[in-house]
């Protein structure tokens, strides 16, 4: 396994509010990392810093060995063009799908390929169909998003991200807006991705998913990584009281014995 993502001393503040207080993390290629933490602990902010949807206040991010941005005068500087190119290499899926409602499913999945990567339309279409097939929605290619169920929308959003051939995928509570009976189909899709060797960081409250799919679980608390480890040990025997309390809060979750 090789290192794909390295985060050093990541800080993020919004005005006076320091949300991330120094995060260090190295992710190996093919790894599935799950981020847990209570509301407001900074999970979304951390993911959003990785693809520069938010600009870190301090710290360095390396993707595939290359440092993002340039260091000048003790601070990191980022050019917008560089960040756009970076975002094209990192897939992100959101809680509320954010599909483009004025485009068909197929057009949604082709858009980034054609506009950002400059792929020819026939190639982009083949690729889009392949990814739609992968998430089991090839037959919905000509529909508009408004006609899909929440679970289907989210799978299209996953296909849209995958079509860009991302090096890393970020998932931010992608099942939280779904009706309970639709959660399974989306988790199954993500699990399949993990098995295919995709590198992923997932924020989720689905502890069962974390237990069965993650290689590593991080517990974020007040902007720092309080604990991390293999799911089988950390979810059953957390070292800190904070994490025990957090897990007890998820009373619905039953660990297999």
């Amino acid at each position: 396994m090789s290192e794909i993502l390295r985060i050093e001393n990541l800080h993020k503040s919004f005005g006076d509010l320091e949300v991330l207080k120094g995060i260090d993390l190295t992710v190996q290629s093919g790894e599935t990392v799950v981020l847990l933490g209570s509301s407001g602990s900074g999970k979304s902010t951390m993911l959003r810093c990785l693809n520069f949807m938010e600009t870190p206040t301090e710290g360095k991010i390396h993707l595939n060995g290359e440092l993002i941005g340039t260091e000048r005068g003790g601070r990191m500087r980022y050019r917008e063009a560089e960040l756009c190119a970076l975002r094209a290499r990192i897939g992100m899926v959101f809680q509320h799908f954010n599909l483009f409602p004025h485009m068909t499913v197929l057009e949604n999945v082709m858009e980034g390929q054609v506009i950002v990567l400059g792929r020819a339309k026939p190639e982009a279409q083949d690729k889009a169909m392949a990814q739609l097939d992968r998430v089991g929605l090839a037959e919905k290619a000509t529909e508009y998003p408004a006609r899909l169920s929440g679970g289907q929308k989210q799978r299209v959003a996953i296909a849209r991200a995958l079509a860009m051939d991302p090096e890393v995928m970020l998932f931010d509570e992608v099942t939280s807006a779904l009706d309970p009976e639709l959660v399974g189909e989306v988790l199954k899709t993500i699990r399949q991705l993990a098995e295919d060797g995709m590198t992923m960081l997932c924020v989720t409250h689905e502890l069962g998913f974390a237990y069965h799919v993650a290689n590593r679980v991080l517990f974020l608390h007040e902007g720092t990584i309080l604990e991390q480890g293999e799911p089988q040990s950390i979810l059953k025997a957390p070292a800190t009281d904070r994490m025990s309390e957090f897990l007890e809060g998820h009373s619905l979750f039953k660990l297999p014995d």
Partner: protein
Amino acid sequence: MEWNFLAVLRDFDLLMLGLLNTLKVTGLALLFGVPLGLALALSRLSTFRILSGIAGFIVEFFRTTPPLVQLFWFFFALPILIDVRMTPLIAAVVTFSIQSSAFFAEIFRGGILSIDKGQWEGAKAIGMTYGQCQRRIILPQAIKRMIPAFMERSIELLKTTTLVSTVAYTDLMFQANELAQKTFRPLEVYTIVAAIYFVLIFLFSQFSIAVEHRLAKSGEGTVR
């Protein structure tokens, strides 16, 4: 008193010429005003303070001052101040392009701001630049929502252009005044003119309703 439309209808071609000129001013003002409005809206939304400040001032200035004053200003004051002489047509087109662009700018701005923040996020996350987001994702959705306000404003513009008769541009109103004096039949003349405006605007609204209907039917819900 007796109505006598015949005396007026004999010179109907005069009115038609006026109508043509009215449509010309309106069309040209739209042609320049819409892109200018978009530019003003994007400037006003820019995070670059000076730019958004200037755009904001232009928009508010032209929205709050009477169009007649603006027209006089371009036609009479500008030649004195900086020695550019304008024909009535050019003065009218300049005035109404800028004046309507101020209103279109607010329509564009409202439309853009009405689009869910998630659309920006979705577009940005696949690597789109600000310009690509606007052009491909935000504006196509915003414009669809803007159409009713846009049509409304265009009708307003068509009616406001009657002011150009005051700078001796031969629009429909100007021709009507001429004809009224010539035939001594002002009531008939203005009744016909009102009918022409009514038919014109009625057709235009019908067209805009049809457009809205088509867009609503085409399957793509405007909301997420």
